[in-house]
């Protein structure tokens, strides 16, 4: 079953579409990688899927419910069911790690007692291996630690899907591999669906169950990772050759 369905989706800025007629689904409980060259519209697509950029045409369905960009309620419902790991982690620099992760709970779950919030945040921090760093400010953390903290914050509201925008960007290969392993572990242990935007082939190979390749503003390939690597397609072959 697909957790997200996109139908005839045109996405762009102003009146100019960057992506045209996209039809695809993101299956529940699996890791889908959105792959493409720089400027292919991966982040633009992600912005639309997370409810920040209204599509110019077409529709996005989340758990079979239409995402209505004109309705604040529809967007708020959508935001409560997703988690996002941003490229730079986007942690609030004025709050320490603990408070960053606790933030959504403090705002939305006013019924929770301080003890419950602490319990949930500590659980998430332990999940990403940052149990000792809760008191640190984002500026005191390394890039990899910030990404892991961003992932912990994305998970704290127990979302149905976590979107990751270029999780390996700016990380060394070792830290990047650790983050990939963390994403796989989260998926396998908790069954959380992940949609990962990247152009790093190392990450694709490590985490992808399914792959969506964007090229020339369209979905160029949509299928299992195993099928992708056996494709006799000039673009896919050149992409793999050029970027490995």
């Amino acid at each position, binding site marked *: 079953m697909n957790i997200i369905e996109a139908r005839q989706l045109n996405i762009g800025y102003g009146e100019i579409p960057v992506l045209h007629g996209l039809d695809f689904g993101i299956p529940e409980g699996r890791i889908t990688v959105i792959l493409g060259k720089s400027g292919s519209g991966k982040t633009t697509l992600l912005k639309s899927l*997370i*409810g*920040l950029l209204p599509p110019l045409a077409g529709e996005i369905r989340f758990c079979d419910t239409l995402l209505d960009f004109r309705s604040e309620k529809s967007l*708020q419902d959508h*935001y*409560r069911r*997703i988690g*996002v790991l*941003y*490229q*730079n982690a*986007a*942690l*609030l*620099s*004025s709050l320490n790690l603990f408070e960053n992760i606790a*933030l*959504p709970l*403090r*705002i*939305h779950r*006013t019924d929770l007692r301080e003890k419950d919030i602490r319990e949930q945040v500590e659980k998430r921090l332990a999940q990403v291996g940052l149990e000792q760093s809760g008191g640190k400010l984002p500026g005191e953390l390394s890039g990899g630690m910030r990404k892991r903290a961003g992932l912990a*914050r994305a998970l704290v*509201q127990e979302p149905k899907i976590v979107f990751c925008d270029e999780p390996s960007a700016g990380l060394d290969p070792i830290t990047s591999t650790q983050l990939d392993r963390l994403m796989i572990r989260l998926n396998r242990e908790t069954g959380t669906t992940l949609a990962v935007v990247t152009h790093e082939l190392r990450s694709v190979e490590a985490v992808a169950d399914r792959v969506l390749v964007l090229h020339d503003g369209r979905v160029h390939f949509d299928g299992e990772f195993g099928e992708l690597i056996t494709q006799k397609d000039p673009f896919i072959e050149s992409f793999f050759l050029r970027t490995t």
Partner: protein
Amino acid sequence: MIPDVTEKSNRTGPGRARDNKSRDPLLSAPEENAIIKKIDSADRHPVDNRLKKTSPVKKNEPSLLTRLFERTAGSAISRWGQVKDYFVLLSDETSHLVQYLIKRKGLYPGDISRQILFMGYQTLPILILITLLVGITISYTSAAQLKLFGADIYLADFVGIAMIRELIPLMTGIILAGKVGAAVTAEISSMKVLEELDALKTMGIDPVKFLMIPRLIAITVAVPLLVVTANIVGVLGGILIGYFEFGTPPASFVKQMLGVLFIKDILIELLKTTVFGWAVVVSAGYKGFSASGGTEAVGRATTESVVLSIALIIGLDCVFAFFIY
């Protein structure tokens, strides 16, 4: 510009062949040559040649007047869009503020008191310094004139009216624009550049409510504190000059000043300064949220925020003067 037909007609090769094909079949060769010569001579007219050298203007390019009109209209439309956006943000903030005052939820705990501390307590040192110096300067400058007419005692009236009715609200507003406004814009625009505003949205947190409501509440609480302190310090400057320049005892100075000042003046001063404070916070938020681009956008937005706030403060002061006095 008239095309150089002669050159074309002398061409050889494939180009020439195309010209032959497109020749008007109704014209004979001598007639055609005559027309070509006529056009050629027109093209070589001295005035035309001068124009050819000096003016590279193409035939279909709009005139200077049209371009000026287009540019002015474009700029006016863009400014109108900005004014609309400003008022949309203002109405958003008002609606969130009302919602918050009713429901009392949706803000980060402790944020309001942190902002009060920043906008009020941490602004006090610079405000005290500036109001004291301005109080001294105004008193000293006016004292020299009053001395000429033997009207020494009216220094207290002058300081009271000038400082309390006009200078303290204006100075407090400008200090808030430079300190608070710049900080708020820099913070929000940095958050925008670093995707923190997007992160708030996707956590289901409205950035306008989350960031602006604590600041609006804080400025409303901080302004009276700042105004009262500025009043005391500003008048103190006048008392010092009155005492050292004219030998006026401080008690007489205060008594004389209170004779010309009424509660209404203090209330108007408080209202004016609070409105200036709101203008600073709303403008700072507007410039912060509308920042776009990389890190240079932060600097640009901060400068624009301070300029806009100061312009608004002076404009609003003018409106107050018109309606009140």
